[in-house]
């Protein structure tokens, strides 16, 4: 997880304090796990230590102290490099879904009912994502983040379809 770089990205348009960084992150990725406050502050401290961000204000405005952070030149360059670099396609991550199916087959149980339930669960999730998208039609970045989740769910669904076909065929030939 490139939380550090995302925090740099959230500071790109101007200095902000930790609370704004957290809120900004959660608005950018409405379907992801919210960023924990603790993580925001540890990340900001680490970025400050590495000279990627700097404290620009410690105003309290009558309330508790709020440290405002801004990007350093080095931080800006680091962010630009991160944004330009393609990611390594991930391989070998075995999902819990796959583990369940493989374990079901090895234990001699029928996996088709599980596969059908999992299919429905994935389709429902796509529906939920869409329902959320129509609320904010012009919010292109949020929609793109949701589309990303939807096409990955679609890839899972294709795997589920293939698994369902294979297991059904296997059952039919053994009959």
């Amino acid at each position, binding site marked *: 997880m490139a939380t550090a770089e995302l925090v740099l990205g959230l500071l790109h348009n101007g200095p902000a304090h930790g609370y704004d960084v957290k809120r900004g992150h959660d608005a950018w990725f409405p379907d992801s796990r919210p960023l924990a406050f603790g993580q925001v502050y540890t990340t900001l401290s680490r970025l400050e230590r590495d000279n990627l961000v700097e404290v620009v204000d410690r105003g309290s405005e009558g309330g508790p102290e709020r440290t405002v952070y801004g990007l350093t030149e080095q931080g800006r360059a680091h962010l630009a490099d991160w944004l330009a670099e393609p990611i390594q396609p991930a391989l070998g991550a075995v999902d819990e879904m796959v583990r369940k199916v493989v374990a079901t087959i090895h234990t001699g149980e029928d996996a088709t009912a599980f596969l*059908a*339930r999992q*299919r*429905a669960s*994935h*389709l*429902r999730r*796509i*529906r939920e994502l*869409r329902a959320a998208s129509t609320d904010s039609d012009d919010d292109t970045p949020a929609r793109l983040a949701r589309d990303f989740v*939807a*096409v990955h769910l*679609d890839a899972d*669904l*294709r795997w589920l*379809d293939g698994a*369902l*076909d294979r297991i*059904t065929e296997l059952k039919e030939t053994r009959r």
Partner: protein
Amino acid sequence: MTDLALELLRVEYAYRRDVALRGVSLKVRPGEVVAITGPSGCGKSTLLHCAAGILRPQAGTVQLAGQNLADLSEAVRTRLRRTQAGVVLQFGQLVPDLTLIDNVALPLLLEGHDRAGARRAAMEWLDRVGVGEDATAVPGELSGGQNQRAAVARALVTGPAIVFADEPTGSLDSLAGEQMMELLLASVHNGGAALVLVTHDNLVAAYADREVRLRDGAVQHEVALS
């Protein structure tokens, strides 16, 4: 009478050598969106064609808007199909020599509506689906997406109880497909119709309230999605 938009009971259909449907039953409530999915060759399109009265099953019954298709004369069945069932196919299947407005007015003219009234209703639907400006163009002058929008207008112009769509986004890219599905759902919802959607695309199936998955001409499973 039944309050279902569509009811199939143990429908069987075989082409010359291949059995396509092996006793499929399906109920669709008014306003419901049902996706028929499954691998290619599983009988999805045959099911849709039997349900829409385009193919006559060799066994079992099809009730469309409360009427058993087998009990009706050819003329009455055609009329019921024309007024109660809208059909949207993969490539729109508009009449190539007719303008969009005449294509959409056609089902009404065949029902004996006067020409001016039919054209007025057609124009309203073309406006609703966003191709009102292209009303006087022929299908060959327009994109697949524009033709598909007109096909949706044609399917809904008679105020059918149910719309059948066979791979309605199959000829469109992903963004146009998404817009097409949103339009189809809004139009069907707007007209109070049910929708039976045949698709191999999971992202399209996810628009449905219920998924019925076929395999080898039989229902493999059925799940509620809403």
